[in-house]
């Protein structure tokens, strides 16, 4: 595995399977009396969150602590960054504190790349602008594998599993990472969205594209709903929330048209009633709650594989 996890494209099929299988093994930790392993004792993981995200930050914090690492939380509000400190200066401060790994969430695409040039430790991208969110894709892949393959999960990829990702792909880092990772693992990915919410060159991506959600539903093993920001309406991406919901929202009627075994996913937070109806979110098909637990396990696997072994020699990037 490479020194940083910045894009899902950094992971080969072998790397991705190693992470998922390691997570499979670590999942049983939650059932033990002592939910802790000594593996990262003495290592420091810094959570560098410039964007508010309690959920993801807590997930990384829990993952690091269960491996006995020390965790330092840095959030942008009320910090030196709010006073105008640059990303570079923040990075240099972390270096001086001896961070072994920095988990960064930032509103600018490419922030994780830039940070990786300024720190010696490992950088884990927890979401940079509209670019990528690789650990989200990993926990999504893990969830799909567990739900659809059950006992046969260990060691297997997602070959032949049909995943439909629905919504604002253009602005979604979750979509980008998932398209890359799921296709690396052998899944067949289809994007369903209005043309205005798809990037211009999406035909070069390793997936199919459809403007019609209803045709895709009966052929989907997994439906992944993306959050739609209602502010996109004022920038003329779609005429109204009502029309968006009518054409691309997953309601109970659409859910009924899915194959029996199909599951419904959402990275959260949800706009109940916009892209996903309440009864869908709360149904047994929905993996939304277990995605949270799986997030801790997958992030433990990532931190272990990045930090649990040899110190990486200085590599030219």
């Amino acid at each position, binding site marked *: *595995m490479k020194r940083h996890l910045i894009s899902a494209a950094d992971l080969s099929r072998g790397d991705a399977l*190693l992470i998922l*299988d*390691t997570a499979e*093994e*670590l999942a*049983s930790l939650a059932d*033990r*009396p*002592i939910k*802790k*392993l*000594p*593996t990262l004792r003495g290592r420091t993981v810094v959570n560098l969150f410039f964007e508010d995200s309690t959920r993801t930050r807590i997930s990384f914090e829990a993952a690091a602590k269960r491996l006995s690492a020390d965790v330092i939380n840095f959030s942008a509000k009320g910090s030196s960054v709010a006073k105008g400190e640059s990303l570079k200066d923040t990075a240099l401060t972390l270096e001086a504190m001896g961070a072994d790994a920095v988990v960064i969430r930032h509103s600018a695409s490419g922030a994780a790349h830039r940070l990786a040039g300024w720190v010696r430790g490992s950088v884990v991208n927890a979401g940079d602008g509209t670019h990528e969110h690789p650990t989200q894709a990993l926990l999504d892949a893990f969830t799909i594998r567990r739900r659809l393959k059950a006992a046969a999960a260990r060691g297997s990829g997602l070959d032949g599993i049909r995943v439909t990702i629905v919504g604002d792909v253009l602005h979604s880092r979750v979509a980008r990472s998932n398209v890359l990772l799921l296709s690396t693992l052998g899944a067949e990915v289809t994007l369903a969205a209005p043309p205005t919410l798809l990037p211009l060159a999406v035909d070069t991506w390793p997936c199919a594209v459809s403007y019609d959600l209803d045709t895709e539903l009966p052929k989907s093993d997994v439906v992944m709903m993306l959050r739609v920001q209602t502010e996109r309406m004022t920038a003329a991406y779609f005429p109204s929330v009502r029309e968006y919901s009518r054409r691309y929202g997953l309601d109970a009627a659409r859910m009924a048209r899915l194959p029996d075994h199909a599951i419904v996913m959402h990275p959260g937070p949800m706009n109940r009633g916009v892209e996903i109806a309440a009864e869908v979110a709360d149904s047994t098909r929905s993996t939304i709650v277990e995605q949270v637990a799986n997030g801790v396990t997958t992030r433990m696997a990532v931190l*272990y*594989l*990045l*930090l*649990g*072994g*040899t*110190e990486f020699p200085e590599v030219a990037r």
Partner: protein
Amino acid sequence: MGATGHPVAGRDGLAVLDAEEIRRALTRIAHEILERTHGGDGVVLLGIPTRGVPLARRLAARIGEFEGLEVPCGSLDVTMHRDDLRFRPARALGRTDLPRSGVDGKTVVLVDDVLYSGRTVRAALDALTDLGRPRAVQLAVLVDRGHRELPIRADYVGKNLPTSQREVVHVLLAEVDAQDAVVISDEGRPS
């Protein structure tokens, strides 16, 4: 001692135990376990991956044959507790599979193929402590090759095999390697 002296197909090196000798050693260990634990009362066998696991299963099967007793059997991966993690890239984990009856108050017999420095067993003891509180922990190994670096000893030994640190001991088991044998080769590598 008595090395049989004929080379094993597919490996250079000397076979020091053949399939028949391995079978007899495991039978003897199974009997010894039954003796020392008053008939296998409260015993749990935990194999250390990779080859400790089929060995534990074979022991459980023999105990079942001799006493009609079903001994709970599982595996205990020690990777996360190793003391040499920082010297190699992070390794893939083996399976930890505890029997449903757990380990609290049990006599856990750790099973491994080769006992050498003792560090793997030390890691296993740490891993075990986080899983519960056994009444006692014992150790069964197929081969003890000496050169302990920690104060660790085995309770049950299939074969004592004095070796030099330049030698490498390979345990081959049908479940993993399609044949049963213990082979020593001189690969000139220090341990």
